[in-house]
Structures are given as C-alpha cells and as structure tokens.
C-alpha cells in the first residue's frame, strides 16, 4: 500500500508540491495576510464621533486625522527615537561584532555568540523590567551617579526640555536607554555575520599594499560590513517604531506610535484610526526593506 502511494506521488511532483506547500501557504495567506488586508480596509472606514460606531464606507478622512498636529508629533517623536536608537546601537554593536568576527579565538567565539544570542531570544519583558529596577529614583543607577558625584550633570540633562523629565525613568533619556538596550542584539548579529564574510585575504592584501590598519578598516572592512549594519537597522528601526510596551512601562505621557495605536484601538474603540496609524510603520518598513535589498542587506540577514 505505502509502496503504491509512494510511486503514485513520485510520478506527480506537482501534487506533492501542493501537499507540502498547501497548509503553510494557506495558513499564512488566509490568517496573516488576510488579517493585514482586513486592517488595511478598516483604515479607509471612519468612526462616527457621535454614535461611536464604525461607518463602513470608503473615506480618506481617517488618514487626514493622522496629519493633525497631535498625531504628526507622535510620528515625528517615534521616528526620531527610532533613528537615535538605530545609530547608537550600531555604534555599540560594531566593536563587539568586529571583535567576535575577527579577533576572538574559536572557543571564546562560541561563548561570545551564545552571550549575544541569549539576550536576543530571552524574555523581552523581563529585560524591560530590569530597567524599571535600574532607573528607579531610589535605584542602582541613581546610587551610582551619586557615588560619582555626577548628580549635577544628570539634573542638568533632565532639565532640558526636549529630552528631560521629572526623573530618569520618566524621561525620553530613560526610554532611549531602554530601547537601545532591548534591540542591541538585533544589531550585533547581522554585523557579525557580515564581518565573517569579509575574506582575510582582502585584509592582508590591503596591508601588503601599504594600507595602515585604520585605513584598511575604513576602506575595506567598513564598506563590506555596511550591509550588515543596514540589516541590523531594519530590526532596531522597525521594533522601535511599533513598540508600546516600553513607553507604557516607563516614559511619560508623551505618546509613541505603538502606544497611540494601542489606546485608539482599546479604550477609544477607534479601529479605523488605529489601523491608519499602523500603516505608517508598515509603509516606512516597506520602503526601508526595499532600500535595504538594494544595498544587499538581505544577504546578511
């Protein structure tokens, strides 16, 4: 019996392909893409203010609401934060990735890769929670800053209108530190992968031809590792754009996109506006992915 089924299938590769591809494709297309499409449709509906009901007819007025000053500020604030986090993460990640890829011994390398991978996969919430402890007013960071007698500097930073706040945990600075911390592993690993692919012979050739180490780094290694940086930035940027856990847990009352979507959807019941606002990050990510693909970043993913 099995033999006959086996022969039957062997002679019909198209059928086998259909059987293999059918379930996952159906699931992803129907459940996932279907939901996304449904969300897109909702973004063209609008919420009738007086009745609080969603009116199911095509309109662009929900999108117009996005450009109201309050919502525009939310977009700019979130994009600014995502940019800052991406840049700083690239700066922190590069030396570590470079060391792992090019200098660590085989044994040390295995351990370092595990040390970087564990935070990547381990509990995101717990890692946010850690900063709740650290940034608390009576917590370890304040203690440390007081120990170094730098509290004057901290208070000065917190008094700056744009980035300050009543305390570290409630200020954009605190939020920024947490975002940078949470997404850092997503930057390290693509850079490390890209650096692994830089052939040692190229580096040797550069130095044989008289390039100083710094020159080799700047003209050979850095350009070749750049797709890795772009690949990492896809994650840091996208994740910061959509996150609402960090700003809800720390931060002040100034909204970020994720938070705004969360509250429009939840308490306000304004699904069309929430849907329209998520289309912002989706659009940004699609453009970003297209640019990244041109830069060859997908090979480093």
């Amino acid at each position, binding site marked *: 019996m099995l033999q006959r089924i*086996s022969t039957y299938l062997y002679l019909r590769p198209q059928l086998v392909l259909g059987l293999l591809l059918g379930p996952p494709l159906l699931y992803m297309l129907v459940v*996932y893409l279907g*939901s996304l499409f449904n969300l897109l449709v909702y973004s063209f509906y609008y919420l009738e203010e007086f009745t609080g009901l969603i009116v199911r007819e095509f309109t662009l007025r929900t999108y117009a609401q996005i450009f109201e000053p309050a919502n525009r500020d939310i977009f700019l604030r979130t994009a600014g934060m995502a940019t800052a986090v991406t840049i700083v993460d690239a700066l922190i990640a590069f030396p570590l990735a470079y060391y792992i890829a090019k200098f660590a011994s085989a044994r040390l390398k295995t351990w370092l*890769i595990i040390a970087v991978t564990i935070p990547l996969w381990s509990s995101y919430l*717990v890692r946010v929670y850690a900063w709740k402890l650290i940034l608390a007013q009576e*917590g370890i960071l304040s203690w440390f800053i007081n120990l170094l007698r730098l509290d004057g500097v901290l208070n000065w930073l917190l008094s700056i209108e744009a980035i300050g706040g009543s305390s570290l945990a409630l200020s954009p600075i605190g939020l920024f530190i947490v975002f940078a911390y949470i997404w850092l592993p997503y930057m390290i690993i693509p850079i490390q992968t890209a650096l692994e692919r830089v052939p040692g012979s190229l580096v040797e050739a550069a130095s044989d031809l008289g390039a100083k180490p710094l020159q080799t780094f700047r003209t050979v290694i850095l350009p070749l590792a750049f797709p890795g940086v772009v690949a990492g930035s896809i994650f840091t940027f996208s994740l910061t754009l959509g996150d609402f856990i960090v700003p809800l847990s720390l931060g002040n009352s100034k909204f970020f996109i994720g938070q705004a979507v969360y509250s429009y959807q939840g308490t306000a019941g304004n699904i069309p506006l929430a849907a329209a606002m998520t289309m912002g990050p989706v659009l940004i990510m699609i453009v970003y992915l297209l640019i990244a693909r041109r830069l060859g970043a997908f090979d480093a993913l």
Partner: protein
Amino acid sequence: MPSKSSSGPKASLGLKLAALGGLLFLHVPIWIIFLYTLTPDETTFTFPLPGFTLKWFGVAMQRADLWRALTLSLQVAAVATVAALILGTLAAAAVYRSRFFGREAISFLLVLPIALPGIVSGIALRTAIGGFDIPFSFWTIVIGHATFCVVVVYNNVLARFRRMQGSQIEASMDLGANAFQTFRYVVFPNVATALLAGGMLAFALSFDEVIVTTFTAGQQTTLPIWIFSQLTRPRDRPVTNVVAMFVMLITFIPIFLAQRLSAQSSDTEGETK
C-alpha cells in the same frame, strides 16, 4: 566559517574595552534582577538592598494566579510550537525540493510576521477575529503565536536541507526504499536536530510573547501578560522579581540548547532571527 586570523593583527586595547563594554551592557541588567529577588523591601527598588531574604521565592510559589498564568503560557507555547514545526517543515521541504512560481515570495511571506512591528500583526489579528465574532480564547492566542513561530522552524530546517547531500536521497530511492522509508531513515535523521533547535526557539519565542498576545487574548492571562500588568501598575514588586528571574532562566535553557545544537552541526541559522 572563515579561518581565524591568528597571523593577523591583535585586537587593540580600545577595541577590547569597547567589546567588553557592549557585552556588559547586555548582561549586567539581567544580573540586577537576580540580585533584587533577595531584597526584603516591598514597596521600592532601593539600592543598596536594605537586607537579604529568600522568603519571596516561597511567597511566589503560593500564588495561584501565577501558576495559572504559567500553565497557560506553557500550553500555548507547546501547541504553537507543534503547529510551527508542521507548517515550517512543510514550507521548507517545498522550497527546497521544487522550483515554482513565487518561490522567493514564500520566505518574504513567512518573515513578515517578525519583520513588521508586532503591534501591526496584533491589531490586524484582533480586528479580523473580532470581525468574525470569534470569541477570544486559548486558540486565538495560539493562532497569533503560530504566525511568527513558523519562520523560525522554516529557517532552521531549510538551512539544514540545503546542507544535506541530495545524493543520499537518490541513493536511498535507487536501493528500493519508497518515499516514506526514505523520509524515515534518511531525511528525518538528517533534520532532527534542526527540528529540535527550531522547535525550542519557537517555544521560547511563544512563551515570552506579549505584544501580539495582548491583542489576541481575551480575559486570559499568560505569564508575560501578568508581568506586563506589573510593569504598568506594580503591585507585587518582590514577587515580580522572582517571576522575572524564573522566566529568564526557563527561556535560557532552550535557547542555550538550541544554540549548542546548531553550533555542533556548524549551523548558524539560529542566530539571525
């Protein structure tokens, strides 16, 4: 992996310090949670700790709400992982063995749930589920989790397939094994560790997920949702510390094992998410 640059230049002190700094930044915050599980302080996060106590471990053990949340999380993760294993392996097999129209798009489609911000998937699923008047339940959580777990299994298994010798399958068939025997004795042993690694990562991913879950769970409380409620409105600080440490350790194990499994077969596919 390329050979070690043993003959190459040594790392400068500055680079070593920068690398060490990055590593410490990644890990010290986690140690601080472990430290705080010992604090007797119930209402603040005072540092230095005013003393040491082990009593919170006992208190956490007694909490029925925690046990319920943990059980739910484990059940969801188990079912989502099984679904991801089946769907991910099927997709990987299809992409590996055939050329077909839209093959490139499959990877893109599967990676979408983790490339797009979680809030997009979450609200999309919630709106769809709500639109069909499906009650929010255990199964709606699982459906959400399975979407982003599939890609992890898919990546691991596909990478293994690509490394496998196609000639082994041909040899098996030439020697008279049918498709099922070939799968059982040739293909499966080859991909078993990739399945295990992918499965464990999918489990860790699901066990910890909170963003999509907040949208697809009704009144259900998974462990991450419990922690999230404590993050926004801290009521049981010492117990939360213990739970945080527990979650860290419980996810640590599958990640560590998956990493070792991948390293053994010189795969690095577990690394890029």
